[in-house]
């Protein structure tokens, strides 16, 4: 007896020992230490631009600055003009469509819909000058705006609706002499304000990331590694890694966490196994829009209401517009949990003039391809932006309205507040038919969430997905996930068998007790 107890105790200890042995192999991965070291080293420029004579002149136009830059950097102009930052379209292969030319020029979004007819306004975020209504002016390398990306003084400002030209109040010479590698502020002035305001589009790229805390983004945190955008969006010959799938279709040139962290960065093998099917972002970005709200819904159908003949706006308690006469009604969200989709790096797009066959379900403007069965697919977090936007119910195509114009009477919705007229002019601009009828159709766009990475202690916990109730993965139904899924019949029958067994032995035992008492009584 004693021997058995000793053996059992020893074996239990052995099992516990094995478990703790496997658990205690906590060696800090060298990779992370290396990375921390690598990115704390300050880069010292090998050139002091302020000492170049050519930059010590009185610049009167921004083009003169560009000419000065190109006089030394004589290949840069060519490089920039082949980059996505310069071009309004590029060639992409889309499954089912073949090779198409796609870009801001012909893609439709569900924010301000499209650039056509609105170029002069949109050009504020183009890295060039002199953009006209017809997108002319971008074939001349003197129109490249070097400063918007390379200004290190944080004083460079582009003027509103001037085809990309800077505000002339700025000191061009000072900026030119203090030129350097892009900082977060250079990228942020455009990428944080997409869609017409801070954080409107992305949800994970916004003002708070100019100088973020580590809690907002563990990589860019000023009290952390303080990385610039270009640390991840590696750049060669002015071509940067990174895609935005509102316009991209192909799985190429993506900026990935794995570039630095490898495919298997965890010390726990069980977590490394997840990386086959789960993108890093899925667990490491538990919430986005951490500081300021992002737009989640947009209803164009209410646009055009006037108070006393004048456009007006309504704001919520946080200062977000909930209504604008020029744009309609909005909903916003802050500290949002992303939605999740399968994604293999390829996407399809609604392009100007595509006929919509199904008008009962929301139309997806950028379908992200992927499924559980697809070997290249991983689960990624996304922001889904849902809109009601103008649609021609007769021709069954989305309407590109004319929104912006310099003066009244050109048909611009934002000045004339006449939907029908703005649709007429807008559709004529893009050479598409317009039936004269406008309805509003529900659309959605997927915005992969890649920034606002949280520290590892705040990453998504196992049971936020592996749970029966409110799993983060509840909408992904094409696979079996332990902890979330079960077979209803097996669950019911199994539980029933357990309950019946307990009842069975309880009843049997009770009868035994009573029958033996009876016998004892008789005796």
């Amino acid at each position: 007896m004693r021997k058995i107890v000793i053996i059992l105790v020893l074996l239990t200890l052995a099992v516990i020992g094995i478990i703790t042995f496997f658990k205690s192999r906590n060696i800090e991965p060298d990779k992370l230490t290396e990375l921390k070291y690598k990115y704390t080293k300050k880069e010292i420029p090998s050139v002091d631009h302020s000492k170049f004579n050519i930059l010590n002149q009185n610049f009167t136009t921004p083009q003169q600055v560009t000419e000065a830059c190109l006089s030394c950097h004589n290949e840069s102009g060519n490089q920039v003009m082949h980059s996505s930052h310069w071009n309004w379209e590029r060639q992409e292969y889309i499954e089912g469509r073949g090779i198409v030319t796609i870009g801001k020029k012909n893609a439709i979004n569900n924010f301000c819909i499209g650039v056509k007819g609105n170029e002069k306004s949109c050009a504020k975020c183009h890295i060039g000058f002199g953009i006209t209504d017809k997108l002319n002016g971008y074939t001349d390398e003197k129109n490249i705006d070097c400063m918007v990306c390379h200004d290190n003084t944080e004083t460079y400002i582009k003027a509103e609706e001037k085809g990309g030209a800077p505000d002339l109040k700025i000191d061009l010479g000072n900026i030119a002499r203090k030129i350097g590698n892009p900082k977060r502020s250079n990228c942020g002035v455009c990428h944080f304000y997409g869609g017409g305001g801070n954080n409107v589009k992305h949800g994970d790229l916004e003002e708070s990331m100019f100088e973020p805390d580590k809690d907002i983004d563990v990589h860019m945190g000023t009290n952390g590694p303080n990385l610039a955008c270009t640390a991840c969006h590696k750049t060669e010959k002015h071509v940067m890694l990174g895609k935005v799938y509102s316009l991209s279709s192909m799985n190429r040139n993506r900026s990935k966490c794995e570039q630095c962290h490898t495919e298997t960065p965890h010390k726990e093998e069980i977590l490394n196994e997840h990386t086959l099917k789960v993108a890093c972002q899925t667990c490491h970005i538990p919430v986005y829009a951490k500081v300021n709200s992002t737009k989640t819904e947009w209803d164009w159908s209410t646009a055009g209401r006037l108070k006393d003949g004048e456009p007006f706006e309504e704001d919520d308690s946080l200062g977000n517009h909930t209504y604008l006469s020029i744009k309609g009604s909005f909903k916003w969200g802050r500290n949002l949990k992303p939605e999740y989709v399968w994604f293999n790096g390829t996407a399809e797009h609604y392009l100007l003039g595509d006929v919509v066959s199904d008008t009962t379900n929301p139309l997806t403007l950028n379908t992200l391809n992927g499924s559980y069965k697809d070997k290249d697919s991983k689960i990624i977090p996304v922001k889904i932006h849902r809109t009601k936007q103008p649609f021609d119910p007769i021709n069954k195509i989305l309407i590109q309205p004319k929104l912006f114009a310099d003066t009244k009477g050109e048909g611009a919705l934002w000045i004339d507040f006449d939907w029908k007229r703005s649709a007429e002019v807008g559709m004529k601009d893009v050479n598409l038919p317009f039936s004269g009828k406008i309805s509003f159709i529900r659309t959605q766009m997927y915005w992969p969430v890649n920034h606002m990475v949280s520290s590892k202690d705040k990453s998504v916990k196992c049971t936020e997905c592996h749970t029966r109730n409110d799993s983060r993965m509840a909408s992904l139904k094409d696979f079996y996930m332990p902890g979330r899924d079960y077979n209803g019949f097996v669950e019911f029958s199994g539980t029933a068998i357990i309950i019946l067994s307990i009842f069975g032995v309880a009843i049997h035992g009770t009868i035994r007790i009573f029958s033996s008492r009876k016998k004892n009584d008789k005796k």
Partner: protein
Amino acid sequence: MLTKVYIYKSFERFWHWMQAFLIFFLAATGFEIHGSYSFFGYENAVNYHNIAAYAFIILIVFAIFWHLSTGEWKQYLPTATHLKAQINYYLLGIFKDAPHPTKKTVLSKLNPLQKLVYLGLKILVIPIMVLSGLLYMNYRYPHQAGIEGLRVGSLEPIAIIHTIGAFMLLAFIIVHLYLITTGGTITSNLKAMITGFEDIEDHKTENENTIDIGNIKTQDSTTNPDIM
């Protein structure tokens, strides 16, 4: 006349208790993974379950060797003889304080119902649990490394089979724990499995009794406890 008989060998007892511990532990961690409740924490539950699973497989390998080398495997050969009597005993006789329809000896320590149920566990439930468990643990994702050769396209059938087995084992444990108490005294079966010794009716007097259980008359009967 009762004599003390050494009925469960030391390895047998070790194997039994180790198996009992592992099955409890696997059930506790397994149903947490299944999402039925939470206790260890999900990641721990998965890790513990996997370690316990391999420990169980090692134990099974030793048990198979022991059963084959000692010939004890013959204990599990099913027999229809007295099967009905055993069932009738549990359903009726036990309440009338009737004697057990079969007797426990070193050469035949399992009653017909035990033989059938344990054999079922050994050749059906445990192998299914081990196989589905191995597939579960080593399944990655379609197209990925591991068991690609088997072309298992989904975890779902593996998981469902593993869950069915788990429910069956759990039901078995409940009934098994209860039937421990149906020996000569409430604790005599438990004591036997701990010490190895059990008080058993003397062999020489065995064939004298004729016992009436319901309508069935049987020659071969003793007053010995059986557990199932």
